């Protein structure tokens, strides 16, 4: 078996230099890095990870940038559970995580969180990012130092240099929702959907997929309602009233392309419309789960939120600590949840 020493000797550099090249950290001249990499490949050197993490006593800290756990009906607790599980699994490799949270409906809160990360960038070996505020996030990404790897989960940002993306194919999840809507609505009429501003690419793609999926079904007409959540925290109940007022008995289905589904379910139930209007939404938050159980939400589409958190940490770990290749994009399965299979998905 080839050792680090031998690689160093063959490349005529120090052990430290070989180590820096393997980890992609610190300063190494391009020429040296190239030579070391060629030799590693030539002699088929495989770093002994276990020995390394034991002997170097090196610690690894990953920063997690995400919205407050209690936003979107406590949705953000779900990926966090996965991050925590990975942290426990990887504790023995001296991996730790630090959360930096923000209010997703406040730009200044988001910017403050970004500044906090950049000011303390020396403390992080990698970042996990849920890029919910598409525009502001794109600006932040540009300021991340080149030697700090980051992983996107929840949603993707095109043209970013992320190590990987772990989450759903948003457009396809909209297509799936449309199929379920077409199957579960038996009469002709209107399907309503809500779009929150400020707009978010990920949610927009779900709506685009949904629109595409409904095409060709002449029975159903789609109507999109926009609502500004930033300006009015109570906007959902107002928009619901407007939908009912405008559509009346024509309303056959309601597609909520985000985690805040329960308020719509409760409102439908309040009017005794749960059996007549097929409500399809996203994510297994506690309150959504309750509405699936009482029948007021017909289907939920779930994007394995817990797994997203777990796998994001794991990908960074594999890249930074184990120096293993990581898939550049990992789409999670789109789970369909209804009353009869919800219990097993909750664990």
């Amino acid at each position: 078996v080839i050792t680090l020493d031998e690689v160093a000797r063959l490349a005529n550099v120090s052990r430290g230099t070989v180590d820096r090249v393997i980890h992609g950290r610190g300063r190494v001249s391009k020429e040296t890095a190239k030579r070391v990499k060629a030799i590693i490949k030539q002699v088929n050197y495989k770093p002994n990870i276990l020995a390394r993490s034991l002997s170097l006593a090196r610690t690894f800290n990953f920063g997690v940038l995400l919205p407050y756990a209690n936003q979107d009906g406590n949705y953000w607790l779900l990926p966090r559970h996965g991050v925590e599980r990975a942290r426990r699994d990887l504790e023995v490799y001296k991996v730790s995580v630090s959360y930096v949270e923000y209010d997703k409906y406040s730009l200044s809160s988001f910017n403050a969180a970004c500044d906090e990360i950049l000011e303390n960038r020396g403390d992080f070996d990698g970042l996990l990012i849920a890029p919910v505020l598409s525009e502001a996030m794109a600006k932040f990404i540009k300021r991340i130092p080149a030697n700090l790897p980051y992983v996107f989960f929840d949603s993707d940002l095109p043209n970013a240099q992320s190590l990987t993306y772990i989450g759903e194919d948003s457009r396809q999840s909209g297509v799936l929702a449309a199929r379920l809507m077409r199957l579960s609505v038996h009469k002709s009429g209107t399907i309503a959907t809500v779009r929150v501003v400020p707009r978010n690419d990920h949610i927009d793609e779900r709506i685009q997929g949904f629109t595409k999926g409904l095409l060709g079904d002449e029975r159903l007409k789609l109507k999109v309602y926009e609502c500004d959540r930033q300006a009015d925290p109570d906007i959902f109940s107002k928009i619901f009233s407007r939908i009912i007022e405008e559509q009346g008995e024509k309303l056959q289905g309601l597609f909520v392309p985000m985690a805040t589904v329960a308020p719509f379910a409760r409102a439908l139930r309040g009017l005794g419309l749960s059996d007549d209007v097929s409500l399809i939404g996203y994510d297994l938050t506690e309150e959504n789960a309750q509405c699936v159980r009482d029948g007021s939400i017909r289907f939920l589409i779930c994007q394995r939120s817990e797994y997203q958190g777990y796998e994001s940490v794991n990908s960074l770990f594999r890249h930074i600590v184990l120096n293993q290749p990581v898939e550049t994009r990992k789409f999670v399965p789109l789970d369909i949840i209804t009353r009869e299979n919800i219990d097993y998905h909750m664990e």
Partner: protein
Amino acid sequence: VATIADIAEAAGVSRGTVDRVLHNRGKVSAKNAERIRAAITNLDYKPNIFARGLSLSKVLRFGVLIPESRADMSYFSLPAQGIEKAQKELIGYQVKIDYYYYDYFSDMQEQKVCQQLLDSIDRLDGLIIVPALSRLAENFVRQIPPGFPYVFIDTHLPDTHCLSSIRTSPRQSGKLAARLMDMLIHQPGTVAVIRGLPENFLINDRVCGFREYFEGNPRIKTEVFDADRTLDRTIFAIITRKIVSGIGDLRGIFVPSSTTHLVAETLDELKVKGKVLLIGYDLTAMNVRCLKDDSIDFLISQRPETQGYESVYTLYRHLILKEEVPADVELPLDIVVRENVDYYIKVAK
């Protein structure tokens, strides 16, 4: 931090004896084993698995007793994908798997393969068992030496000393299929159930759950048709034809086994595709193809890869990490349609 030496001292035994207890290997008197376990608990000893992995580069060898996955039983090739994934992940351990295949269609209570497995059990650290033929499996597990760890996947066998069973709930999956039928069928009518292998308790439980859901439902009637125990292509075709021509108000067909594609092919030939809703089980290659060309509407999947994956980890946690493992794990039931099938297949690979 407590070390093996500390435990040995506290229990008044040699380090080797502690090691044997930790690894469940070799002979240790019951009294000594008890004392050592008490010392481990008192001193809160946690084996340094990574140091050990380095020094021993230990081999874990597991036997897998599973039906042969020929033609229509290709479902049983799926758990192996998860087993392989776990093998790759457990760095520091060399996990070796020996497969022992039995014949799902043989009525014999004894099959040679079971004896072969029992003969070589000393070379193994644990077993993963698919107890699809319950009589065969019952007879087999009775002969496993006491204390030897084994895990069931796919189905559970009651009244055994299994370490854990990792599966989905068949009754609940029948109810789930019924709910989907109920939501998606527009007009009142009849749903036919084609029961292959009527004596198989897993399939039977699915049918029970399905019928239970529709009990007292004025809109939808259910009618059960039994295939014989061969899961034969011709027999499925004959039954499907009989159902289509015989039931005037046929709205859907439920197939509680992975042979759903056989029904799909016949419905296709009869040109009733799209008029009769078809719901079945498992993401075998043939079923996936039918799902994609719309001849199957819904498949329920029971995460066979996860079952395989978790079974390896369960044994690993028990043998190496000395953790308590859950006795019964019920995995999620996945609802799969054309629009989400690709992601399930990708995850499996």
